[in-house]
């Protein structure tokens, strides 16, 4: 390969300087543009971080308060169930008492029947007739007292049954509310996760989607309070 000698080109100095300046300007423009883009990106990140922080703060508070409310509702449900259980136990005890008294009453009735049969064979002036009369009065009084006792026991059982029913309804009501609060808590937690992910993936749409999920969770929690 043969080398050809390069003819020196006569370029004016001014032109060379302009060219260099132009190139430098271009470089500077590129540098500035890159700097501006970097600044813009930094600002955007900062804005995302700020909004994510605010959202996270609000959602965390919401989750905490909703957790307390859910816990209260859960306790109320447990309390109502305890009342149901206690009322049923008390009612069973009262039934046992009722049956005991009924058995006692039957004993007196049988004794009265025996008296009535025995008296039929006695003469009017037989002293055993007077004794039978005495026992008859006694048994009759005892039967009446037992009737009154069983009446009271029965009404107590009715009260306990009604209390158990009301408490069960209350427990069911609190149970429904607790479920709704649970749903709210889960949804809000999901929203918190989605919004937090925005920081990593840098997708604004994810942030807004998280907000939408948070709104659903909050609505679910609020509706739980007004649930009937």
């Amino acid at each position, binding site marked *: 390969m043969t080398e050809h000698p390069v003819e020196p080109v006569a370029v004016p100095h001014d032109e060379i300087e302009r060219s260099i300046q132009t190139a430098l300007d271009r470089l500077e423009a590129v540098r500035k543009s890159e700097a501006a883009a970097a600044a813009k990106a930094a600002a955007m990140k900062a804005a*995302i971080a700020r909004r994510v922080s605010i*959202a996270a703060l609000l959602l965390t508070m*919401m989750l905490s308060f909703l957790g307390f409310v859910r816990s209260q509702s859960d306790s109320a449900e447990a309390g109502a169930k305890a009342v149901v259980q206690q009322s049923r136990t008390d009612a069973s005890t009262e039934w046992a008492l009722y049956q005991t008294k009924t058995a006692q009453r039957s004993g007196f009735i049988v004794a009265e029947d025996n008296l*009535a049969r025995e008296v039929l064979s006695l003469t009017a002036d037989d002293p055993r007739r007077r004794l039978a009369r005495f026992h*008859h009065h006694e048994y009759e*009084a005892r*039967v009446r007292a037992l*009737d009154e006792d069983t009446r009271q026991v029965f009404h107590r059982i009715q009260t306990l049954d009604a209390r158990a029913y009301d408490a069960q309804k209350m427990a069911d009501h609190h149970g429904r509310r607790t479920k709704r609060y649970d749903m709210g808590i889960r949804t809000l937690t999901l929203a918190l996760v989605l919004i937090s992910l925005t920081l990593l993936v840098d997708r604004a749409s994810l942030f807004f989607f998280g907000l939408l999920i*948070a709104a659903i969770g909050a609505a679910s929690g609020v509706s739980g309070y*007004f649930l009937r």
Partner: protein
Amino acid sequence: MNIAGRGAPRTRTWQGLVVRAIPPSVTRILLMVAIAIGVAVDVFFAVVNFYPVAPHPNPGPKRYVVMQMDEVQAAWFQSNILDDFNTETNSNLQVLRVSDEEQLQASIHDAAAGKDVVLVALPETQLARAVESKLVRPFTDVVSSEQIATDFADLGSSILAPGMFANTQYFLPRMTVVDVAAYRVSKVRDAISHWSVLRPQIDAALAKINGRGLPAGYELGLTPAAWTSYDLFVLAYYWSHRSYSGEPARPRVAHRTGDEIDGQRDIVSAIYRLGANDITIANPENRAAIDMFEWEALYRDEGAYPPEMFAEDPFDDEAVIEQLKSGELFFAPIDTMEAFRLHGGAHEAAAALVDDPADLEFTSMPRGATLALDGKGHPLRQRPSFSFHEDWVWALPTSTHATTVGYQLVKFLWRPEIHTRECEALGMLPLHPKVVAERVSRFRLDWISHVFEAGLEQARYGERTPPELVAKGVGSVYAQLWIKIVDGKIAPVPETAIVEALHAPPRPKPLAVREKSDVDPAHAVDKPVPERSVPETENEDWETSVVLERVTGAKK
């Protein structure tokens, strides 16, 4: 996408469409709104921690449920049923009670002027009139038939059937009322022990009609549920001659009379008990009617019926209750709810109306048996115990402004727990299939289960009250015939006299609708009987000889 919201909105394309980004200013506003809502929700939950129960909105104006009840029953229903319903549904329903079923429709009229009546409980005998006069409208106007079928699927078609009118669920079921027999145990025991003393007289009284007397091999039944017309006559005859506690002997058995619904139903059901049916009843000269009037004339001739049954005022439900209450009657038909009222003790405020509720028992009505006997000395015709069912339904008044509350209440009432509560306190016959199946464990008191068992047994053999009873005046005809034959002292024999009377039946009268002012105030509220003191007399019935009156040579 520019989340920072600076600069002009940008556009992007998606599948050829130009999608314009949300302007940053709008985004900013949206975010501010979201923050504000978030803070508000946080504050809400913070406050809710201190007020865990949500406040109730205003339940609105009072609305009314019209029912036939006494004061005690109405107070119980309000505090144990309606108040619970009001709490659950945030309603404001109140009981508007009437003492007599004939006043129910008048009450809707009265109430329509100033009160919003959302429901009224009507007996089936009044349905046609209520529909004709447009006082009520069908439930299918406010709830679809499919919804009703779904909501009441547990009840089954037989319970919903009384509410069907013109092939739609015009009404919803309320309850079924059947009669049972109430009797005094101590007096039955006395009769079982001593009735045979009067056997010759009883035979003689019966022989005047059937030429023989009591059926062959007759003994007074020891099982009340198996009693027949003859057992009842023996009891009635014995008691009407038996002196108790030194008081004059007098009639102790009765049923309702008079040209009102109570009397009509008792008289017509007595005819059915002797073999009539929906077809034969239309002809007053039917065999069962002749048999029934022979029995009735015999009771009258033997002085076994109290004079009040022949008085001008109808001897109705309330009159029977009064006589059972005062101890005048030892046996009478009453419905299950009246049985509960009489016995008392079904709930705390239900005082006993009789001096000794433990002496009161309940069974099904006696089986029908004719006075006429066959060649072997057995009743010529017999039939199982019979009583009409009177179905009551919930009707929706045309004038009500709150149509759905009434429907909700009916649904609430048919919950098994609420139905059980009502049955146990008011004496309604259990109808809900679940409650009926579990009745042994749900109704544990002996006397309550006796009433219900008698009622359910009665319902098994009974029939629905025929519409002709009121609509065609059949009940009125027989009630007037009863007055003509029994009060008119037509002899039971020869039966041609009775047949002649039946041959010329009176014209039916429209069912009497009493105004509120016509109701005897003495019946308005039941006064509990003061507690009986244990008698201190030397000679008490349980140990003294039987004292019989108006019977020659029968003193034992």
